[in-house]
């Protein structure tokens, strides 16, 4: 089951990397949220109720529901297709796949580097690295703010997976902070997103390059 989820997650990553229509992002994000919930649930069945609730909050409510909705609201039928960077269409798929392969390699390497380590879930780890790097790739490759937001969230998903993979459970305080962090940053970014839109009419970040030397 876990394997299934992980694989779907990775596929979703590859898809994210080549999406053309902005609105199809939201579905993907929602999907990833759900997947994350599934994984987290399998991981932390044993864990305390509060923690479970927390994860529920974080994944289902927040990642799978709130964020996509929020994004949809702010981009409400204004933008349809997003501005591409140098790498177009299926090439980006290639790169995404490459990243996935790389992260598999890294995972493998780490795995037999550390036989002793029981806690390292290589599958998650791979997915996490893949997700982080794909996120970075999207951010680098695309030039409009929506995609940047998306990429941020993808990276955050990666981090979440990583926390599963490394199984290091932070104190509640910190978990709250993480949640708050994603929440606020998405919120604040959304706010600025609107302002930018009002200011520059379109969302191409090449507009946002007055400050340079």
């Amino acid at each position, binding site marked *: 089951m876990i394997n299934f989820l992980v694989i779907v997650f990775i596929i979703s990553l590859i898809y994210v990397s080549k999406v053309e229509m902005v609105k199809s992002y939201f579905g993907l994000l929602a999907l990833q949220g759900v997947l994350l919930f599934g994984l987290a649930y399998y991981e932390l069945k044993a864990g305390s109720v509060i923690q479970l609730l927390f994860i529920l909050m974080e994944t289902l409510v927040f990642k799978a529901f709130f964020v996509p909705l929020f994004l949809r609201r702010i981009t409400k039928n204004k933008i349809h297709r997003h501005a591409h960077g140098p790498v177009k269409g299926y090439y980006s798929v290639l790169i995404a796949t490459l990243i996935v392969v790389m992260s598999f390699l890294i995972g493998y390497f780490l795995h037999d580097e550390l036989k002793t380590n029981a806690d390292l879930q290589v599958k998650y780890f791979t997915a996490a690295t893949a997700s982080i790097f794909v996120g*970075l790739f999207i*951010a680098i490759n695309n*030039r409009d703010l929506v995609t940047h937001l998306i990429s941020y969230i993808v990276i955050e998903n990666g981090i979440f997976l990583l926390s599963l993979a490394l199984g290091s459970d932070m104190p509640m305080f910190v978990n709250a902070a993480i949640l708050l962090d994603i929440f606020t940053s998405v919120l604040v970014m959304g706010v600025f997103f609107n302002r930018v839109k009002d200011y520059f009419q379109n969302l191409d970040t*090449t507009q*946002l*390059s*007055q*400050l*340079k030397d």
Partner: protein
Amino acid sequence: MMIILFKTALLLSFGIFIVPKTWKYSLGLVLHIMVVVSTGTWAFESLVNGTQTIALGVATWSGPIELVIDSLSAFFMLIINLICFCGILYAGGYLKPYLPKKRSVFISLHLFSFLWLHGSMLMVTAMRDGIAFLLAWELMSLFSFVLVIFEAQKESTLKTGINYLLQMHLGFALIMISFLIAANETGGLGFKGVAMYFEQHRNAPLFLLFFAGFGIKAGFIPFHSWLPRAHPAAPSHVSGVMSGVMIKMGIYGIFRITSLIQNDLTTIGIVVLTIGIISGMMGVIMAIMQHDLKKLLAYHSIENIGIIGIGLGVGILGRSVGDDYLMLVGFAGALLHNLNHALFKSLLFFTAGNVFYATHTVNMDNLGGLIKKMRYTSAAFLIGALAISGIPPFNGFISEFLIYNGVLHHLPGAGFWMSLVGVAAILALVLIGGLCIYCFTKAFGMSFLGTRRMVDHQEAHEVTPMMLAPAAIIIGMILFIGLRSSFFGETVIQILQQLTGISSPAIMNDVVQSLTMVSNINLLLILLVGAIVGIRVWQQRQVAVRQGPTWGCGYTAGDFRHQYTPTSYAESLRQLVNPLIDYKRHYKSFAEKEIFPPPRTFHTESKDLIEEKTVLSWVHLIVKYLPKAGVAQSGLINHYLIYPLLFLVIIGLLTILNIL
């Protein structure tokens, strides 16, 4: 008592900013006098009763600051006090025209920096501990920088100032690093540590590092490029003090280090001598090529530093071959030349300042005939010129004579190499002397003699007595050294005997004897000249004396344009040294059928090739290409994300591959 005087002077210096504009100068003068009195007393005491230590009563990062005044420090302190005092006197007259123009903050800044330059130079000579020394050293550079950019609203001046600041900072860094190297080995940051280092390790590398650091201040070629820029830019009293004493601080440092070195003497000596010879020759050659009087004087500072370098070099070589005479007398010549150069160079700069004050230009192409309008100034300049050319009966000769003597005395017993080295040194000194005559006949003849060359400066007039007073003081000193040279020779040799710990009455006697002779002959010369002039006056009374036009070889319509110009005067040498200077003449020659040629202009310029090659080329390289490396701030957020990615990947790889 004196310590209180000194400290109050330094504390009250902040008052310069507060008091009203008209009082600022008087306050500055008073403070200078306070400093001169206090430190002068210390210097005299320690010259008489040997080294003394004075606690300043403040602590810095290296513990409590104390002034350690040995005879060497005392000697330099006296020079500093004399020249700085003359400088502030001169400033009184020179700054007058600026008072109404400038806002009071500038005046205060200037006077404040002048006082502190004085103070910091004194401290440099008296600091033994590393951090205190470096502090004083950098303060000296800093305040001299502020003084140089007195006219900072002009872009050129500011650029010069920044150039100066950077070179000084580089020199500072070199000295600092040398101290740190010594401290790293011996644990003592300061001259003690350096001495210990020299006892344990090879000397040449550290010495040369020190030499580079101090040499930038002293202006040895190839570290000289700041002098010909900074001195013309600065006001004359400042250039007088800077060229007179501040560059001597570099020499002081070199003397200090030289007194500590233990081995590698031959290498060090050869290097110092070579650099000295090159500086001397190139300095004077470049000087002859100049049109700007102050720039010419600046290049002459390099030349004189070169002479000092020669003295030092032969001294070190003398020590390496164990010839005390050569060592002591060579060092003595170098040390005494510090004093002499301080005197006549500041005199020359002050008089050049008078010229600028009267005519608002120091470009020799436009000067000429000033001697009729400014008798005293030109007389003073003449004496300075004779002195700097090392001509008796003035002081410049004495120090050069000492160096000659050392080398000549060594020659008979010298080995093969030493005899060649000695001949080289003599040759260099002789050529420098001859070139100096060439140069200063040009400088004096073109600016003061004949008739005006271009601009008509009828308004030029003799300057106020206030501005001539320092010149008078200095001329007094110059003649005193010239006519009582034995006393000074004795003093410097005593200083050196204390410094090197080698004392030999025989050498002392020999030097004193010949110097006494020299002085007597100088006196005789003066008397003889007086007598002949007297006879001449008497004869002129007897016969008919009339004025007439200059002999024009039958051509009666000659006017001032027929005179020799600085350029044409330098021409014959120029042809000889053409490869050394990048010489350009800007002139449009006549066309084929040009019947009615329009008026033409002609001017020449010569670049300092050594500076071009050693300094500027690198600087231009950096300034041109480094900004091109600034590609990171592209303004595109996408790019900003590439850097962390690259960073992570590269460092990660390096880590995994165990390269990092």
